[in-house]
């Protein structure tokens, strides 16, 4: 039997493997339920964060973590470094409550953050260092976690939208597109600096995970103008690293545009037909998805989970390059029985045809 690290690597090369890997996007929301504590305990304490993540990995050794075993703080880290205000809540990742800029004129006042001093970046780096010092070797050897594996970052489009305020940014795309582009350039530079700062801890990056949901809620034309060029800059700067992209909006209209980023793996949402994703981009990009995370994975019976998993495998696994997953982050209180069912279905039914 292949080790998880071998199975995933072969999957990304579209090679034949023993069974379809299971790859889940698990965050504090899920882990808090898994251990029966409040989410804030996870986000405030790197020791608990590492402990809960590895406890889940030990419970489900066949599951690959989309975000790796690494610190994650939802979408708060980079926006706070650019000046957005955040708030800690008991049952949520830290949330952005006020954008950094109120008018497009303020874009030019923004400065590239210093990861050692700005916003939540120093806290995240400290946690990353803690993880690197304390992660048991078996997780590095069997999965490759923290071996040049970045913390999850926001895509430039999401970061720009949070920095400006989502509604205002969407209106800027029409009213002041040049300003939107200036902000996107600033956000892209920020992310490049942020990723390089992470290299000081885990070495040259081999794998970068990016979440960028809002770029899935725009047209092809807008994607090509306001998202693609900025993704490509990150792609070019870290040209040797794999890029794993998460976007669980309905990306049906922009699948081809996403493939042009040159991403290695794409974790997509439940509104996208996996068959359509496979036909459009599935021979170039490894697809990761997409049983409905709430209606089926959390609220469905094990039988329903099994049927949904089989349907995804049937539609998306032909020719390889496919990992089974929920179409989004795993919801709090998703039954462990349903996760076990997904793993079992992958092991018994998940063959590349």
């Amino acid at each position, binding site marked *: 039997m292949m080790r998880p690290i071998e199975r995933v690597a072969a999957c990304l090369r579209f090679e034949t493997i023993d069974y379809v890997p299971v790859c889940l996007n698990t965050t504090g929301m899920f882990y808090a339920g898994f251990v029966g504590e409040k989410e804030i305990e996870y986000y405030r304490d790197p020791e608990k964060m590492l402990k809960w993540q590895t406890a889940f990995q030990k419970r489900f050794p066949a599951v690959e973590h989309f975000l790796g075993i690494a610190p994650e703080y939802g979408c708060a880290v980079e926006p706070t470094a650019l000046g957005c205000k955040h708030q800690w*809540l008991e049952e949520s990742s830290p949330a952005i409550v006020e954008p950094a800029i109120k008018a497009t004129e303020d874009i030019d006042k923004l400065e590239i953050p210093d990861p050692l001093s700005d916003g939540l970046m120093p806290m995240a780096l400290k946690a990353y260092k803690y993880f690197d010092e304390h992660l048991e070797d078996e997780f590095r050897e069997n999965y490759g976690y923290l071996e040049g594996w970045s913390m999850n970052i926001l895509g430039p489009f999401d970061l720009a939208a949070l920095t400006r305020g989502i509604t205002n940014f*969407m209106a800027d795309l029409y009213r002041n597109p040049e300003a939107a582009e200036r902000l996107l350039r600033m956000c892209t530079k920020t992310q490049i600096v942020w990723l390089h700062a992470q290299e000081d801890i885990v070495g040259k990056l081999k794998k970068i995970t990016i979440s960028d949901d809002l770029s899935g809620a725009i*047209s092809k034309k807008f994607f090509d103008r306001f998202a693609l060029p900025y993704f490509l800059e990150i792609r070019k700067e870290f040209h040797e690293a794999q890029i794993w992209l998460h976007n669980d909006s309905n990306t049906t209209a922009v699948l081809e545009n996403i493939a042009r980023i040159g991403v290695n793996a794409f974790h997509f949402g439940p509104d996208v037909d996996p068959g359509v994703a496979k036909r459009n981009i599935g021979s170039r990009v490894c697809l990761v998805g997409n049983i409905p995370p709430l*209606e089926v994975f959390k609220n469905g019976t094990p039988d329903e989970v099994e049927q949904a998993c089989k349907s995804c495998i049937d539609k998306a696994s032909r020719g390889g390059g496919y990992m089974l997953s929920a179409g989004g982050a795993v919801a709090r*209180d998703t039954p462990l029985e349903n996760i076990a069912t997904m793993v079992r279905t992958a092991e018994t039914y998940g063959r590349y045809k």
Partner: protein
Amino acid sequence: MKTNKSILDRIAETIVNLDPDNAKKTVEEALEAGISPYELVVKGMAKGMEVVGERYAKMEYFLPELVMAGEAMKAAMEVLKPHLRARGAKPIGRVVIGTVKGDLHDIGKNIVVSMLTGGGFEVYDLGVDVTRETFVEKTIEVSADIVGMSALLVTTMSEMRDVIQELKKANLKVRVLVGGRPLTEEYANRIGADGYGKDALEAVKKAKELIQPSVDRQEC
């Protein structure tokens, strides 16, 4: 000379073309031509929003287009409001809306607010992280017809049930409309909501259905 019909069509077009400046100008022109504000809303702006909804469903329009259509509706409504008031016209309905306690997400809620405002509702936006007490107090204060609630997190959506129970305890005859990414129609029914909007456009449609008897009575 432009007919009523052509001006109303042009108003609809400004919404479809996502053009707040022209929406405002065309509404001003229509008022000068003597068209009633109510006719402008129902036969002009609302028709435009219908087309926006169709294009969104066909994936020709996306989130930025919804935001801009909402802006166009809002710009037109700003011009219309004093005229509606002068004629003694009541708003289509009063809506108290917010994202529930523990949840700070507001993109969907903000679009709904824009579109409800543009659709002729008087909207009281309570923002995010709204307690059940605040929902109840504001509902009483403004005699709201509808309470709208949004949640993005699985962990906060159950708060909606508690707000509904508080509204019932206070004997308020108000309709409740809910929406947000983790919600389903089935969940909305289960917690006792009167309506569920899968997206902003559907939320506005439902809001109109919920106050239908009073809309039918509107004449101004």
